[in-house]
Structure formats: C-alpha cells, structure tokens
C-alpha cells in the first residue's frame, strides 16, 4: 500500500523533507529524470522520458505510462509537484 505518490517534473525541485514520509513513492518525469535519486528513497522514473533523453537509469527503476497509472490508482493520493 503506497501512501502518497509524488510526481516530480524538474531536476532538484522537490517537496521539502518535512513533507515526505517513509512509505511515500517518488516518480521522476520530464526533466527530473536528468537527476536520478539515491537508493535510500522509494523512487522510479518514467521510461519514455528517460529514453527520450538518452539517460542511463536501471531497467527496474523504469515505469511505462501504464505502470504509472497503476501506481496512481493504488496510491492514497497523488501530488504533482
């Protein structure tokens, strides 16, 4: 069960630490994929946005748009940052 899903659009433009909970999940889209996160966070990236920018992100961190929709469906709430 995912708590809040945060969709991040811009590199280095994140909700502040007070807002993030351990069970939250971060999805990087658009230019945010240019700066992948460290492994201590729950995160993944939009596969098409990664491939479009020719960036290397591990396959298991990449989500199709349908994966993203499934995560949105299961989330408690979704915040597009």
């Amino acid at each position, binding site marked *: 069960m995912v708590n*809040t899903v945060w969709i991040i659009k811009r590199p280095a433009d994140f909700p*502040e630490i007070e807002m993030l909970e351990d069970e939250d999940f971060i999805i990087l889209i658009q230019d945010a994929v240019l700066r992948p996160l460290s492994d201590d966070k729950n995160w993944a990236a939009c596969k098409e946005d990664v491939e479009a920018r020719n960036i290397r992100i591990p396959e298991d961190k990449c989500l199709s748009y349908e994966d993203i929709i499934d995560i949105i469906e299961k989330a408690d709430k979704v*915040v597009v940052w």
Partner: protein
Amino acid sequence: MAKKKVVVLIKSNPFSWKVFEALRLAVGASMEHKMHVVFIKDGVYSLTDWKPQLIGIEPFDKSIEALGMMGAEIIAEEEAIRERGLILKKWPAEIKVMPKDDIAELIKDSEVVLSW
C-alpha cells in the same frame, strides 16, 4: 461523492498569472470542499503589498475575500516569510502563519493536493 479535504499549495511567486488562476480554482473548489490555500516558498510573496496592476495582472483581493467568506483556511509558511524578510499585507480574510512542520501535517491529512 463526498466533500473532500483539499489543499491548494502555492509555491510559485505571484508575479505571473499562475497564482491568480490558482486562487480562482480555490474559490470554486471551496464551494464544494473543505479548502486550505497554503502559500509556501516564493508563494508567500502573494500575501505582501505587491502591485499586480503594474505588471498587467488582476489583484487577488476579491479571491482572498471570497475564500474567507466561504470558510476556506488561508495559510502562509512562517519560515518562507522570515527567510525572505517579508511583511504580509492586511487582507480581507484571516491569514494564518504556520511553521513548515504543521503545513506538512496538513498536507498528509488532505485527500487532494493541487500544487502550483
């Protein structure tokens, strides 16, 4: 089909049309939902005595007044105001100044968060 707890989160400065539109949305949504309009980061400039007309933007006073009448809560981030050395204007509705931690709690408790 129930009334929702909604946060309209304003993090951009008000010197383009963005915040004006965000407030219009907040006014509309407050007719149906429990509304919290929360100004954080550069969003807090919105509540100072700035002059929208000088840059071709409509003033916010009517929207703020409508939010007050509709029982929406209007909240400004304490740290953001302090860091920027800003003074809030007197608005036709009550503005609550709140620390980051409490704002984080409010966001956690809400069902819909619309960030601008």
